[in-house]
Structure formats: C-alpha cells, structure tokens
C-alpha cells in the first residue's frame, strides 16, 4: 500500500525553509554590502583629504627648498661684502685713512641691514605662503598710515635726491585691515619706487577714494627704471627680480612684491602695476575696500588726531648741490 504524501517526503517544508534562508542571507549580504559601501565612501573622502594635505605639504616643501636655496644664495652676497671689508680693516688694509675706514664701516652696516631685511622677508613670505598669518582686522585710517610710511622712507629718498610729492585726501580713508601688514605693503611699494628710480627722479604718491567711493585707491607713479610686459606678468611671483633691477639695488631678494600681493589679496584688495617699458617709469596701484567714515577707529596709533586737518601735500624738493634736501609742506 503506497504511503500518502507527507510534508517530509514531498520536501515542501525544506524548500520553503531554503527560500527563507536565502532571503535572510540575501538581506544580511545586502546590509554588509551597504556597510562596506559606506566605509568605502568614507575611505574615499579620507583619501581625498590626504591627497589634498599631501599636495599642500609638497608645495610647502618646495617653498621651503626655494627659500633655503635663495637664503644661501642671496645672503652670501652681503655676507661676502661684510667679511671682505671686515678682513681689510683687521689686516690694516685702509691704514690710517679714516675716510676709507668710515666708508667700509658704512658698507658693512648697509650689507648687514640688507641681510636682516632679507631674513625678515623670507620669514614673512614663508608664513604668508603657508597661510600661517592671521590678520588682526581693525578699522583704521589709511591716510595716517601712509603719512607714517612716507616719513620713514624720506631719509632713503634723500640719499638719492628724489622729489616725492604726495596727495592724500584730507578726509578719513578708513579701511578694515591689519595696520601692521598694510603698512608693510605700502612700505614695500614706496621703497621699491625709491630704490628703482634713478637719482634726482620723482615719485608721486596719491591716496583717495575711487569714483564710487567703494575702494580706497593708493597710487605710486615713479620715473624709475620701468619694466617690460614680460616682467610685469611675473612681477608678483616669488623671487622675481627684473634684469635691470640688479643695476639699481643689488641686495634685493625678489620677495617684496610677492609679500605685498599676498597681504593685499588677504584683505580682499587689488594690486596692479603698469609701465610703458624699460626706462619709462611705472605706476603701482593698490585698492582696498573702503569702510564708511562713520566707523569708529579702534587703534589709537592711527587715530584721527594724527590726520592733518586739511589737505596737504608733502613736497620733498632736493636743493641743488646739497646732500640734505629740504622738506616743505604746502597746503
């Protein structure tokens, strides 16, 4: 007698069980796969961050190498000068000629000062390039800052009998920025104009709001050595020195305008240069966003009391035959 079909011999329960088991296994695999996918995404993000960090490190490493190379190369010049003159003095090469000894001492002083400036600029350029600089933003009067910079650089201009004129708008020209760094940028631009303008040349400095008063415009126009279009295109790069620049200032390090640009960029400003060519002078322009004159000035160093009450031009006119030019203030 044939046995009736049962759950066991038809195999149906075990088939259902297998289907169910497959479903469960499939869900488990799905969940694991999803987890893996999420981990994979996290890994990709980490990988991108690592790549980015690695690129920045490579750039910093390159900059460090450049700075090191430049430091050894550029510092060697003034150092050789110092050693040479010092050695001659020690060996009595100048005899009792006090004028020659004084001249050698002055050259040693000049070379050591330039070394100090170079080291300072290497450090600042390095910090700016690696975004390690924090600007202490505060509203301040750019007119007052500019007057201070011109006063500091007047002695340098006097040695070259340069005629410096300045037109600074008498009203407060308030910008939001780090006064120390903005001063440095202004100093670099005017210092460059002085150094690369032949003796008895002229430099015109202007500071005023632009036409819609949204920006403060600082302009330096000189009768200096000028530059080619090719030099202009690279002027704000690190370590660039125009070929004709060496004739005028041998100790330059090619970092000044790079630093100025980094500072101005960090203040949402614009720095530009134009020149009609070598020997035809140049015009350097910096524009910084203007703040309303109603904004109170927090820095006492740049307080309104320092600003001249009326428009004034500082007129620096060398007297013929005199090593110390006179300074006249014309209202």
């Amino acid at each position, binding site marked *: 007698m044939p046995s009736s079909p049962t759950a066991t011999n038809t195999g149906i329960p075990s088939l259902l069980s297998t289907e169910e088991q497959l479903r469960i296994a*499939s*869900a488990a695999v*799905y969940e694991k796969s999803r987890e893996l996918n999420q981990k994979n995404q996290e890994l990709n993000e980490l990988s991108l961050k690592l790549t980015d960090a690695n690129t920045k490190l490579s750039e910093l490493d390159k900059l460090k190498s450049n700075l090191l190379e430049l430091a050894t190369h550029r510092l060697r010049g003034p150092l050789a000068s110092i050693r040479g003159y010092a050695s001659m003095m020690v060996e009595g090469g100048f005899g009792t000629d006090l004028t020659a000894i004084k001249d050698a001492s002055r050259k040693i002083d000049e070379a050591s000062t330039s070394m100090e400036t170079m080291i300072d600029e290497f450090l600042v350029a390095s910090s700016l390039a690696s975004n390690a600089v924090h600007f202490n933003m505060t509203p301040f009067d750019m007119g007052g800052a500019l007057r201070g910079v011109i006063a500091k650089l007047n002695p340098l201009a006097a040695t070259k009998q340069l005629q410096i004129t300045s037109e600074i708008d008498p009203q407060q020209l308030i910008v939001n920025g780090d006064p120390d760094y903005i001063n440095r940028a202004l100093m670099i631009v005017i210092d460059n104009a002085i150094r690369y303008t032949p003796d008895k040349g002229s430099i015109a400095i202007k500071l005023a709001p632009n036409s819609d008063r949204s920006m403060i415009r600082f302009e330096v126009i000189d009768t200096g050595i000028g530059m080619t279009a090719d030099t202009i295109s690279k002027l704000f790069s690190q370590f660039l020195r125009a070929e004709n620049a060496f004739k005028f200032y041998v100790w330059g390090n090619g970092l000044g305008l790079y630093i100025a640009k980094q500072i101005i960029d960090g203040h949402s400003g614009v720095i530009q240069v134009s020149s009609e060519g070598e020997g035809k002078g140049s015009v350097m322009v910096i524009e910084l966003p203007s703040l309303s004159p109603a904004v109170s000035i927090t820095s006492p160093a740049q307080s309104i009391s320092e600003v001249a009450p009326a428009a004034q031009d500082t007129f620096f006119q060398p007297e013929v035959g005199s090593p110390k030019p006179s300074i006249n203030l014309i209202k």
Partner: protein
Amino acid sequence: MNTLDQVASSIIKDQEKVIGPLAWDEAAQVTGLQILDRKTGKVEIVANSDHGKVIDDLVSQYVELFGRAAREACREAAAPLIAGLPAAEVPSSLK
C-alpha cells in the same frame, strides 16, 4: 526630469553602489518606470501612471529582495530630494 524622476534615479544609483548592475535590472521590472540611460542614470516615470505608486513599487522591489535595510537605503537616497516636496506628494514608502 521632475522631482520624482530624480528620486527614482537617486534610489537606483544608490542601490547600484551596493548591489551593482542588479539594481538596474530590478528597476527595469517596475511598471511605469522607464530606464532611459543607465550610464547617466536618466529615468522617467511614464506620464499617465501614478508617480507615487511607481516609487513605492521601486522601493518594494528592493525590499522584497534585501529586506528592511533596502528601505532605509532608499529613504536616505531620496531624503535630500523629497525635503522640498509637499507632504501629500511624498510616496508612502519614503515617509
């Protein structure tokens, strides 16, 4: 692509990351959903169909195969897109 077309595309592409090309094969079985381009992820819900139901069917397709985790994956994939939709237009499977 309208918002629900984008939701469908986003769900399928997200599933593809987990289960591979099978995600497209499963989506192709959903009535009312047209796969226009697998490479770009372009899909379209047929105009005269119930758009919400098509999305629900798509979600069910994955849930039947892979369980509740698949529903969560669909919700996560659709979340940024349905955030701007009125509550009444959000398919029930994604609520």
